[in-house]
């Protein structure tokens, strides 16, 4: 069960390809597979670099800083989860904006949401018998 105060979430099914992404938050790190031949961050994970076709991929941490590409304030109770309304956004990581994450934007008044705003990662910890998961959510990055 999730710890007190953490909303219900449908969690990802962990496997060897995605575990680094979903559990990096245990060390406070946002992690992606990165091509060791050309430096391209590969996301979602796949067994080959789509840029140079190298299979030499390794997990690396990024800064956790991102930019808001677009968002929506969701009012519809699709499923149990965060208190309504909540914000779903797509963010681009600063290291490689072509790496996009769908996520929730938190700790931000809805009328201050703005495409292009700087964000930083915060992790939401979910205990689970199949392995703990740390969901990367994003909040305004007041330092930038």
């Amino acid at each position, binding site marked *: 069960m999730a710890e007190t105060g953490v909303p219900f979430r*449908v969690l990802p099914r962990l496997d060897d390809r995605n575990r680094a992404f979903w559990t990096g938050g245990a060390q406070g790190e946002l992690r992606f597979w990165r091509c060791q031949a050309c430096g391209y961050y590969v996301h979602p994970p796949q067994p080959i670099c789509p840029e140079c076709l190298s299979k030499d991929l390794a997990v690396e941490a990024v800064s956790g800083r991102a930019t808001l590409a677009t968002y929506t304030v969701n009012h519809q109770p699709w499923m149990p989860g965060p208190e309504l309304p909540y914000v*779903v956004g797509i963010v681009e990581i600063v290291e490689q904006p*072509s790496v996009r994450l*769908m996520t929730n934007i938190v700790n931000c008044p809805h009328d201050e949401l703005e495409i292009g705003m700087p964000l930083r990662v915060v992790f939401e910890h979910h205990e689970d018998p199949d392995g703990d998961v740390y969901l990367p959510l994003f909040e305004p990055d007041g330092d930038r």
Partner: protein
Amino acid sequence: MTRDPNEIIERRACISGVGQSDVGRRLGRDPLELTLDACLAAIEHAGLTRADIDGVSTYPGPTGPPPGFSGAGAYQVIDALRLDCNWYDSGLETSGQLGSVIKACLAVAAGLANHVVCFRSVWEGSAQGDKGRAAVMPGGGEGGAFKASGYMEWFLPFSAPSAAVWIAMYAQAHFARYGTTKEQLGWVALNARRNAQLNPKAIYRDPMTMDDYLSSRVISTPFSLYDCDAPCDGATAVVVSRVDRARDLRNPPLRVEAVGTALHDRTSWDQPRDLTQMANRDAGKMLWTRTDLKPSDVQLAELYDGFSFITLSWLESLGFCGLGESGPFVEGGHRIARDGELPLNTNGGQLSGGRLHGYGFLHEAAVQMWGQAGDRQVAGPPEVAVVAAGGGNTCGCLLLTRDR
């Protein structure tokens, strides 16, 4: 067009008949029965019998969840009607719902079949019952045991299970870049409702004002209730025939002048390189490379409206206006009215007509081009129509012309 017209093999195909089952919010009927009703109606409408049908095509075929998304697969229809097929196909990974029709065009053009019955069947209204969308969303009712995988792995953990949320974000990006407004989205919905009042099968037929639209409950900004299509039960079928086998049938052949099937982008709904556009950009552009006709030749447009924004996006993708200009294009609703320069979604689309999922647009284009649209018939009848379906990563379109 520099290409040899003989290479545009979809022109060997035509639409020869269309049919539709009863359509309703919650019919509570066997979805296979609805599917067979539609198929048999289309076969009869074409002036054929089931003995003439030698091909079957459908989208998406048998699927897992969500319930109601697929009312029947190809095998079920082939068996129920004891069809002798020389070619059959179904599948989800194709150029939108109409990808199944386009595949049928290619099959008849290649000589694999002469008359292919194509269908799309849904029972999402009954599947949802009185519990709404939440009843058919993955995982929500199963506690923590359900785990997300596949492409939904990246969406479900953030409580974003619906295309309403994903497409709302495209709309928001379009608003931010081009100044598109909520009222402009509203004209797509109001136009659909105006037309649905003349469609006896439409789900929503009461008059709707801009105030009604703007005051409806918010779903996911900028979308409110009437920006989202209406789940329903119903099946739609079309017969795709080889033109040389269709000349003496009941209806003048609706030739497939050109198709658009392209996808030049990432396949996940959160990864397109430009979040104001979808795969319809590629499909629409491709269509015009396969014909000498121009957007200005089109007399009728039936453009997918699973969400209001998708219709705006198709208007841009098909070149009826420039990028970012679709909001002003529909504003006021005159240009897109039944008596306007580009009649649009003349049966009420999916927003008011019901979420028949792509095929409803093709059915409507056909009956309009044959002058069989009853009270909502547009002038002409139209000789050139464009039909487009899908959004996100799954988009396809056809340009139809009527033989005189």
